[in-house]
């Protein structure tokens, strides 16, 4: 176990170091650089001034050296300043992260609550009409572009019916719990639709797998009712791995959140990363992307370990 853990953690550490360099390089390859942006807003700067500034800030150094400088500063806790927010990167990121966690958390709980009964219901009668219906809906949900579903929701609920706001965080000058809740409904609904489509397939497959096991046959042979077999034996054994694996597939969940946040102009991490790339906010884009990568990798390791612990058939060595 500890050998497996060490191996997995060291692998992830290597990936993180490589990715931090790759992302740093990519950010450097985005259009323009901080000095160009400075020049654009100050016509009095001459090319010589620009060259001097670039030398001063080390922008003319080779990429490896620049990366090293950034890394040493970052390890000292200095992650830089956000150009568009005029605040240190970490100060900007905190609230965005909290909003994304709220959005993802709410829709995750809702999705699990919908997907589990749906998947178990389908798996209880494989290849029946209802199984087809559930499968078809799930496949349809996975085939529809998520931003399109979001646009349809906006059209129906805010343009047509006028019940809910089309996007944003809160009404300016109003705020408060109820106001914010209204703004949350559509993004959460949109992300939930997307997640349910994906989760249901896992729940169904895992339940069908469990239903083929010997202990289910034993339970049935003992004369337990179908209901108690499904609820007591199948459901419980199928759900632990399903929920763990889904919860820890952070990359997919985060991608969904990024699209949802962007369409609904909800200021979370996903929209922050997207905006920072579009507005050349290099420091914010870099730290945001690195953070997303880091969390995804940590979640992946967590999933591997939990899966191995839950399923004794998987060897850890």
């Amino acid at each position: 176990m500890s050998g497996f853990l060490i191996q997995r953690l060291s692998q992830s550490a290597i990936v993180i170091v490589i990715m931090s360099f790759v992302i740093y390089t990519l950010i450097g390859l985005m259009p323009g650089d901080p000095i160009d942006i400075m020049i654009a807003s100050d016509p009095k700067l001459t090319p010589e001034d620009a060259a001097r500034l670039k030398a001063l800030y080390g922008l003319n150094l080779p990429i490896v050296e620049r990366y090293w400088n950034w890394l040493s500063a970052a390890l000292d806790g200095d992650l830089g300043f956000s150009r568009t927010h005029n605040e240190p990167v970490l100060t900007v990121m905190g609230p965005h992260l909290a909003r994304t966690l709220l959005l993802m958390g709410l829709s995750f709980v809702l999705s699990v609550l919908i997907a589990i009964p749906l998947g178990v219901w389908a798996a209880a009668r494989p290849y029946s009409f209802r199984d087809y219906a559930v499968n078809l809906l799930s496949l349809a949900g996975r085939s529809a572009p998520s931003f399109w579903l979001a646009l349809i929701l906006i059209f129906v609920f805010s343009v047509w019916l006028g019940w809910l706001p089309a996007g944003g965080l809160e009404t300016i000058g109003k705020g408060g719990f109820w106001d914010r809740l209204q703004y949350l409904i559509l993004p959460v609904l949109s992300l939930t639709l997307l997640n349910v489509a994906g989760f249901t397939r896992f729940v169904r497959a895992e339940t069908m797998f469990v239903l083929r096991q010997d202990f289910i046959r034993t339970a049935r042979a003992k004369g337990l009712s179908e209901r108690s077999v499904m609820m007591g034996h199948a459901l419980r054994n199928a759900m632990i791995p399903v929920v763990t694996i889904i919860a820890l597939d952070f990359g997919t969940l985060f991608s969904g959140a990024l699209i949802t946040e962007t369409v609904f102009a909800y200021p979370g991490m996903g929209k922050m990363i997207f905006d920072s790339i579009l507005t050349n906010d290099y420091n914010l884009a870099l730290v945001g992307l690195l953070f997303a990568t880091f969390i995804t990798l940590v979640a992946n390791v967590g999933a591997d370990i939990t899966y191995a612990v839950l399923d004794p058939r998987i060897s850890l060595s």
Partner: protein
Amino acid sequence: MTDRVVAWASRREIRRRRLHRFMRHRLAAASAIILGMLFLASAFAPLVERLMGIDIRDVDLHALQQGPSAAHPLGTDELGRDLLVRLLYGGQISLLVGLVAAIFSAVIGSFIGILAGYFGGRLDSLLMRVTDGVIALPILPLLIIFAAVDLTKLGFQASGVDDGDISLYRIIFITAMFGWTGVARLMRGATLSLKEREFVRAAIAMGASPWRVMRVHILPNAVSPVIVATTLSVGGIILFESILSFLGLGIQPPIPSWGNMLNGAQEQLSNAPLLMIWPGLMIFITVLAFNFLGDGLQDALDPRALND
């Protein structure tokens, strides 16, 4: 009594299996027909354009966001361009990106998988660690940053970078870069098991070079799962392309793609909701069709597999 119960259960089981297969194949067949029609329609987009006597690049400020009419069967967009012809051109882009990127991914994945499986040892563990690493990455944010890279900083000529087609090549390249991992794993597994089979061992014993064994004996025998996986991946790639184009980082206007048409439609949501329906529906149908087709191919190419 017992026998009758068993017979009844198995008959029900058989009936379900049949229904299952029939449904699958009918859906796969319908999907193949729909995709064929889409291919033809988008291939003939220039002809349709000529026959209708319009030019999709023509901005017509007198015909903004018109409803369906004889001149414009699906109406016009926010710049007065014909929606139907733009949808057909958009289909060219989506199908091209989806297929080419899926094939590129399959080629890269097959190459990596076969090398890892055949040579094993250190090469195998290195390649598989890289594969694990790529699988673990958050793809969408990385695709966004790759799509935002300034190509002139990589030494490309500015004139070439401004060419509209470059956004097409770029999106194919970056989606393939992240899309090969599934096929690599499949190919490695297939190679590992084929390597132990008699005909492969015989070929090795007769002195065939590794290159020849891989090309002649392993690759052809591992191709069906790769075809299935590749077909199933087309839908995902089309979705990623549409997301990037919708976000303004994929196919650049004025070249129409279903994704960037939706970007334009979002701003017109309140006065022209129909603009949003069509491109999304096209993406939806295409992706769904590729998924059904992949499912059907899976059954057709591997009759032993009893799919859940």
